[in-house]
């Protein structure tokens, strides 16, 4: 179980540069609460020299993940963006004295967040990272059992995917006819509206808001506004909302954040 080397243990127990970075001008995120590991990498980059002057991180994760993020900050501080750009997952693992293959997710997330932070600094659109590895419905026994009983639906939306959907430029989302705001009328629509009303304070507390647009064929269309659009918290709050709707209705529903018609 504790197959970690000394360097991993040292970085895990004494993480370097953990915490918020007040003067950050480049922030990149990767992972999710749902996936069990998430990273926010904050960089302070001198615009003139493009040198990384400070780096800090906030993260959720196990031993190898926290250690990887800690090592990553040490690797990039003092480097030029060009050098940091070339940093590989292997370099991060190397700084920890190596990691077993099944523990390489930490370095991968670190690399992903670094890419996102640099892109954010340069004002570039973030390239779509490869599809999350843990997103597909797990071919697990529990899942198979639910499938057999007709209870299985698609897995709850990946928070980061949900977050990206929020910021994606006006994707053509099929909207329910405006004349029938709640197409799937009756109890279902009423139940969903009630749940959203109940959870609205959660969104409002984050400085945003949520509004139910339509319910149609297993899909719940919502509009997110204010600070909710695009933040990591919105992603996992939406998943929480979806979980509640599924638990209440007893059948799968997808939540689709969209622009107003």
């Amino acid at each position, binding site marked *: 179980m504790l197959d970690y080397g000394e360097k991993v243990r040292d970085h895990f127990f004494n993480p370097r540069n953990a915490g918020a970075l007040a003067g950050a001008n480049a922030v990149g995120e990767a992972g999710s609460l749902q996936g*069990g590991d998430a990273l926010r990498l904050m960089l302070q980059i001198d615009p003139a020299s493009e040198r990384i002057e400070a780096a800090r991180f906030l993260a959720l994760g196990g031993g190898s993940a926290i250690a990887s993020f800690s090592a990553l900050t040490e690797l990039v501080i003092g480097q030029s963006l060009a050098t940091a750009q070339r940093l590989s997952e292997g370099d991060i693992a190397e700084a920890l004295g190596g990691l077993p293959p099944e523990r390489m997710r930490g370095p991968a997330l670190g690399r992903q967040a670094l890419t996102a932070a640099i892109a954010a600094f340069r004002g570039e659109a973030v390239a779509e990272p490869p599809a999350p590895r843990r997103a597909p419905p797990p071919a697990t026994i529990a899942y198979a059992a639910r499938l*057999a009983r007709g209870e299985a639906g698609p897995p709850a939306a990946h928070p980061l995917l949900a977050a990206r959907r929020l910021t994606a430029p006006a994707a053509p989302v099929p909207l329910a006819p405006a004349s029938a705001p709640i197409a799937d009328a009756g109890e279902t629509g009423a139940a969903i509206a009630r749940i959203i009303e109940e959870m609205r304070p959660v969104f409002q507390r984050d400085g945003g808001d949520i509004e139910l647009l339509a319910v149609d064929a297993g899909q719940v269309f919502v509009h997110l506004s204010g600070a909710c659009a695009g933040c990591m918290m919105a992603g996992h709050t939406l998943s929480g909302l979806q979980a509640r709707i599924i638990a209440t209705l007893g059948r799968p529903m997808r939540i689709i954040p969209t622009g107003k018609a």
Partner: protein
Amino acid sequence: MPHPAPIYLDHNATTPVAPAALQAMLPYFSTHFANPSSGHSLAAAPAAALRQARRSVQALIGAASEQEVIFTSGGTEANATALRSALGAMPGRREIVTSAVEHPAILASCDALERQEGVIVHRIGVDGQGLLDIDAYRAALSDRVALVSLMWANNETGTIFPVEGLAELAHRVGALFHTDAVQAAGKLPIRVQDTEIDMLSLSAHKFHGPKGAGALYLRKGTGFAPLLQGGKQERGRRAGTENTPGIVGMGAAADLVAADLAEALPRIAALRDRLEAGIMAAVSHAVVLGNRHDRLANTSCIAFGYVEGEAIQLRLDRAGICVSTGSACASGAVEPSHVVRAMRVPFTAAHGAIRFSLSAATTGAEIDRVLAVLPGIVADLRAMTPFWADGAPAVAAGGGR
């Protein structure tokens, strides 16, 4: 500074061998090494020791006859034997009913039977407290079912299935009933002769016996097909020279735990409840997994929201406290265990499950030590997360208390 002894709260994983059980075993490595099946006089002592151990295990589970106890190499072999035997003994029936939260020893065997032999396996789900979906169970029962295999108590949450009633339902459709009682033996009073259970699996190392020894209870008159063929040991039901020292250790441990059970259970439950209440009072966004009433006295599984289980485990370990996480390393990623997933634990906490499993040797001072360090560890780790830094999440979103 002398290092204090580790606080071991992982007794559902394994237990230390009771000193008296170890002492009982030692002569059977040396003086009484002979093969119990041999015809000479040296075989008399090991053969008598086997009989004695069989009676001890019979007493632990309340079996009607010592002949109903078949010694195996452990719980996994006992489980595999039960599954294979039932299919062999019930020609014409090709279905198995089990649950989504069984030990991998059952689930992986069922997977293999399904894949390789076309057996139809019904895996019954559980609710948020880990209790079996009885309606789905009834619906899965038919005259095509050879065997129902449902665990007595869950290894991760301690949740107890009502196996006596479930066995009666199985018998109404003529199916055999097996229960994996590996976590229940020595932690619950068991009197199998008063039930309709046909087969029951045991493992010595879960109740202070040695690893590598276990047993399958087989009710007299139940059809049987052996897993291992060969010699005539165990009345032809399990071939292979007996693990005499291990079996002797199992018998001795069974005697000890049975004698101690009535006195120990309330004491263990009180310590567990103190631990649980202390944690729930000091840590927000935590959920106790499993059913609070139908639960083993020694087990508490708590899912902590907004924190990752391995991180808690590593920090506790450094503080000298040994626990398990509710996660399993599956195909390169650390995932919540199949039990946590089957119970639909809120995803905010599904990666933060920690299992505390106590024993009769656990002390109040040890519990106090856990309560002194755990809240700080969780708070530290949460303070490091982006979720916490953005402002502690609302309870409504986290499914907390």
